[in-house]
């Protein structure tokens, strides 16, 4: 199950995570002017929030990482020597 956390001291209250999340994982705490996690279990692990967050205050754990295709065969051959 995906787990999401917001580093409260880093949040600038821009609401971008609240706006971008398609499953409404975040809510905005008006008095504190900061975003907070409403329902971590609803996170699908798209990572758009952490990609957008200007202060990089959102972290995810236990999410399925999509393995990128190899982009450069020569580089891959060098990399594979260490795997």
């Amino acid at each position, binding site marked *: 199950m995906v787990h999401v956390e917001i580093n409260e001291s880093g949040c600038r209250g821009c609401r971008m995570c609240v706006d971008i999340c398609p499953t409404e994982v975040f809510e905005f705490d008006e008095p504190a002017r900061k975003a907070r996690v409403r329902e971590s279990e609803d996170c699908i692990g798209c*990572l758009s929030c952490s990609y957008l967050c200007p202060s990089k205050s959102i972290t995810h754990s236990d999410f399925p990482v*999509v393995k990128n*295709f190899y982009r450069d*065969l020569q580089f891959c051959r060098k990399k594979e020597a260490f795997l």
Partner: protein
Amino acid sequence: MSETDSLRSDLLEAMNFLGAMAAGLEEALGDPSKSISYLAGEKLGLQFSSGANRVDDLQDALQEVSSILYKNHCLWAFEPFKKKSEKEMVHLSQEGEEIMLVFRDCMIRQSLFCYGHPQKGSLCNMMFGFFSGALKNITGYSSRLEIVHAGENACYKRLTLFRKQNPLPA
């Protein structure tokens, strides 16, 4: 070059070609390029699912689509999703049945990212076409796959099966 390297090289070429085709079509035709991708996907869906089991339940039908993709070596893994507050996976709407799907490994997203093309373009419509074609054969109803959110690591889509329309001829 080893066999694996050769396959990877072919795959990269195919991805490059697909990405360039989609970008060129979008620039030349605009929105109609989505119809072309849709029709290409639908044809693929109809072809792949030609011998598939006919089922009525939407979740069983999705399981059938998933196994068709797997059998045909397609990297289009998806899973049904419901929020914690929701009781049922399938919702009834005015048009028929709706289910939310999360797509994680997607060869189209990989192709787009590899060459810096934007998401939600014509190539993404190929998936809509594929589901439409496959579900036509499996359930006998037409369907729509709408992109709710296109993310960096996963996409969130709404699948509607138009049960309130007359079923298509087998």
